[in-house]
């Protein structure tokens, strides 16, 4: 019996483009065609001006570390201690994620450090956007 893994998302019609994107190696955000607002999480209208004219685009995948905790309690699919982080994408929105390829310590995890997206496949349908320290 495999050990239970981490909780996985169940895409909805409004978020399917995001999860299709991560599966294809793209971090997809939405931009309002009316007011230009870039936003996350996905929805088929602009949270700033309510316009339904919005577009999906491929984001750069670049971010900075905005805040985090280092969790010391057991959670299925994780080996503590591990960081639960929020990153700020260069396009503006923030998202929760994990930081990989980096020690999970206060010394290694400095706020505002540059990060880049690192896709981690969970199964045939779901790939999660994690982040690692930016190279160069």
């Amino acid at each position, binding site marked *: 019996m495999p050990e239970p893994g981490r*909780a996985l998302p169940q895409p909805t019609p409004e978020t399917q483009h995001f999860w299709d994107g991560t599966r294809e190696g793209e971090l997809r955000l939405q931009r309002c065609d009316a007011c230009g607002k870039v936003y996350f*999480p996905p929805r088929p209208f602009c949270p700033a001006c309510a316009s339904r004219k919005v577009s999906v685009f491929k984001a750069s995948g670049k971010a900075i570390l905005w805040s985090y905790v*280092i969790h010391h309690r057991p959670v299925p699919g994780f080996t503590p201690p591990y960081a639960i982080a929020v990153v700020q994408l260069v396009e503006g929105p*923030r998202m929760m994620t994990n930081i990989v390829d980096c020690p999970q310590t206060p010394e290694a995890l400095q706020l505002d450090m540059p990060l880049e997206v690192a896709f981690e496949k969970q199964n045939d349908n779901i790939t999660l956007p994690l982040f690692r320290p930016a190279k160069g």
Partner: protein
Amino acid sequence: MRRKTVAIVGAAETTKLGVIPDLSQIQLHADAALNAMADAGLRPKDIDGVATAGDSPVQIAHYLGITPTWVDGTSVGGCSFMIHVRHAAAAIEAGLANTILITHGESGRSRVGNPPRAAAPASLQGQFEQPYGPMGPPSMFTVPVLRYMKTYGVTEQQIAQVCVVQREWAGKNPRATFRNPITTDDVLNSRMIAWPFRLLMCCLVTDGGGALILTSADRATSFPRKPVYILGTGESVETPMVSQMEDFTSSRAFRVAGPTAFREAGITQKDVDHLMIYDAFAHLPLYGLEDLGFVPRGEAAAFIAERNTAPGGKLPLNTNGGGLSYMHSGMYGMYALQESVRQMRGIAPAQVDGAKISVCHGVGGMFAASGTIIFSNEAP
């Protein structure tokens, strides 16, 4: 403008607080409700409005034998009860009900008849937060705090000081779960939960309940207890996802609810004698003091460390010991309200001498919601 037109005439907690494996969650509601009705000299037939959170007001009304003309099931986390007080006051003013019972019961520790709380995998939280390994409030509510600390140069020692001061208040309260004095070293050396948060920076997990009864101020003087008047109220919500807070150093919901209540009450921070700020975790009094305008942004940690909120200080804060030391069933707001009412009645274990105005500020979810109530014990 709601000023002293509605009053609290009944208030009580469950007979026991702490670990109560012999009562299910609905009986915790009922035990508190029966105590509050006894406090007010009322029976279920005298109640015509019911509000509760977590469970349905239908369950509570049926279990207690009440036939309401008004119900409120607003359930936005631990500040739901502040919001119920606000809605109940408006309902009484509008003539929708005369005598409203607000109940809370939660088998948070023993989990007897306590429904599970989990984000659905298709919800936004389920899709965009849960996959990254948070496990409940200790690893979610705490996520913004490093940004706050970096922005204002706040140290882990200063956050630990919040817990130390509240334990001093708890030491004066025979019903508090934790009463022994602690030091900042005790806090910093307690078990790591989600760095920078240690065990003693996180609230208790206990069982209990509480209930309030409200009626119009003109009827309030005919009840056995000294009325506690509603002077001002506020509420707001921001986001179900802590990762999507607009500002990690401040709560938008706090900044709406708090000032709304102050405007309605027609008072300023200087008029406040006693303050409750819902403290599920040690950073919440810091955000609350700043967002409610008691101190400038970034100065709350120093304000607490300088003992302004401690026994003998100029702004007594969380005088029951708070969620950190008194009790915390999961939705603590009811216990903060109970302590404000006790202070206004003049019967609190750590009574603030001569207190005339008490502000009670709540949070719901992880900075998701907020409710603020301002009480006064002076008649209109």
